[in-house]
């Protein structure tokens, strides 16, 4: 079976900084990575392949950095990478992004399962899975914490909801989004990283997948007006002292004054 993992290329949030005066994020020069939950979707796909055979394709709508980012997916075990990269498709909203991904999935064709994270860790919007499912007319299984194939036509998943764990079965093909708890993604070995460089990566522009960037722009429904870090209102007092004991003593005094020690 062919499994397609949808991977989002995002800036490494561990390395993201904010300009102290404007509070705007500084994304320039920050390393790009696969969004963590999407990586777990890929890990799920690879484990299914290891158990049942088939192939795993990694698909991303990205930018100039995405080719490097997808190397990790290939090193983890994806058989091939597909990247949609076209400057005229940059900065689309979730509606546009899902339209592009659905078109690329159609172009790849012959899939049994499409996997993604329940949301990307940068925009946290949790829309792409259900939207892609709707556009392709497929069943959507969100928040999978466990997933197994009953046979090559049927999938069983445990959906992690607030109040219940819901065990569901569905006919394939289907779209499944996964939660963090589903697995721990493997760390590629040096050997697999070497091998990844020889695996095929296909880069498509808008016309290759038959989408019209102008039409997508005309359909644009959401605009980001402004992004900034919230004001941090902290005292930022560095406790001075000659010795460690002195500093610690002053800290304890301060905490008692704050009323947080219960004395």
């Amino acid at each position, binding site marked *: 079976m062919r499994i397609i993992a949808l991977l989002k290329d995002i800036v490494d949030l561990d390395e993201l900084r904010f300009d102290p005066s404007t509070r705007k994020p500084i994304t320039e020069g920050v390393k790009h990575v696969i969004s963590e939950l999407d990586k777990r979707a890929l890990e799920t796909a690879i484990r299914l392949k290891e158990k049942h055979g088939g192939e795993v394709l990694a698909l991303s709508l990205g930018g100039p950095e995405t080719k490097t980012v997808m190397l990790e997916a290939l090193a983890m075990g994806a058989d091939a990478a597909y990247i949609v990269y076209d400057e005229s498709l940059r900065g689309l909203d979730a509606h546009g992004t899902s339209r592009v991904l659905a078109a690329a999935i159609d172009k790849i064709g012959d899939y049994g399962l499409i996997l993604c994270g329940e949301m990307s860790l940068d925009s946290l919007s949790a829309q792409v899975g259900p939207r892609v499912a709707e*556009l392709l007319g497929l069943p959507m299984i969100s928040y999978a914490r466990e997933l197994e194939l009953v046979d090559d036509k049927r999938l069983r998943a445990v959906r992690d909801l607030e109040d219940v764990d819901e065990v569901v079965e569905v006919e394939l093909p289907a779209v499944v989004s996964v939660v963090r708890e589903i697995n721990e993604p493997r760390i590629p070995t040096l050997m697999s990283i070497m091998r990844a460089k020889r695996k095929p990566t296909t880069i498509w522009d808008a016309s290759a997948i038959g989408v019209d960037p102008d039409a997508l722009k005309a359909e644009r429904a959401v605009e980001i007006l402004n992004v900034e870090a919230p004001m941090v209102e902290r005292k930022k007092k560095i406790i001075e002292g000659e010795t460690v004991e002195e500093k610690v003593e002053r800290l304890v005094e301060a905490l008692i004054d*704050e009323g947080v*020690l219960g004395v």
Partner: protein
Amino acid sequence: MSVLIYSEEPNLRLELLGKGRELADTMDSKLAALQIGDGNPEELIKYGADLVYVAEHPLLGEWSLEPYRSVLLKAVEEASPSVILIGATKRGKELAASLAASLGVGLLTECLSLKLEDGKLIAERLTYGGSAIARVASLKKPHIATVPQRVFKRPEPAERRGEVLKLEVEPEKPKAEVVERREKVREEVGLEEAEVIVAAGRGFKKKEDLKLLEELAEVLGAKIGGTRPIAADYGWMKEWIGISGHKVRPKLYIAVGISGTVHHAAGIRDCGIIVAINRDENANIFNLADYGIVGDLYEVLPALTKALRERLKK
């Protein structure tokens, strides 16, 4: 033109009525609520609805995406809303995204504020994993937004008049079959509920050294937490605090050997008092803290534990 609200969560439903009423009033339009299955439509009217659409059908007994979406689509057809508010539960988020795709429109998820401006719906929502706030605009009608619990106040109920309408609909059949539903077991007090948390970062050289933190935690009656690297990369803990982990809000948070990345900052923003202990005086954690001690944690921690033990015994 109207505002339409839906949530399967009873409290969130009332909170949506409050915000929905406000938005409807600014447009001088009606507020409609959708009720699927059991419930009291009169209560929704008391909390602000002008119209309640009630949908009942054997296929709507348990929640499932396709039947619920088809009912919501029908309600949208009837009410032709310019704004649709949906409760941001897990089910609600899935439903909203699927509905937005069906209608071919935008969606603002997990909104923390909402207002109408020049025909656009403007919202604030978290982005960059919770470390930043984005102001976003929905440009096209119907505007759809999801709202988490406890963001908007529940309105005061009042004696009001409204209309209850039966929604005639043949729901779509669910595509997935529910085999079993297992009730979740509530775990013991987790990091989210802890009053005091002491947390470790990469300043700790090896796992055994966490003993120093455990001693401090014992004196304070604190829960122990950590950053993503020491949990996910080093495997010293199962869970971590930060963008991709727990968001905590204790009265007192002591960050030990933590540099203060954006990732971690997003998880501790709502803490009461934050104390930072770090060797590097330029570490960002000092910008996020109320009190800081610049020093080697291997010296500061034992001294702090000792001082607190003496003080708290009194």
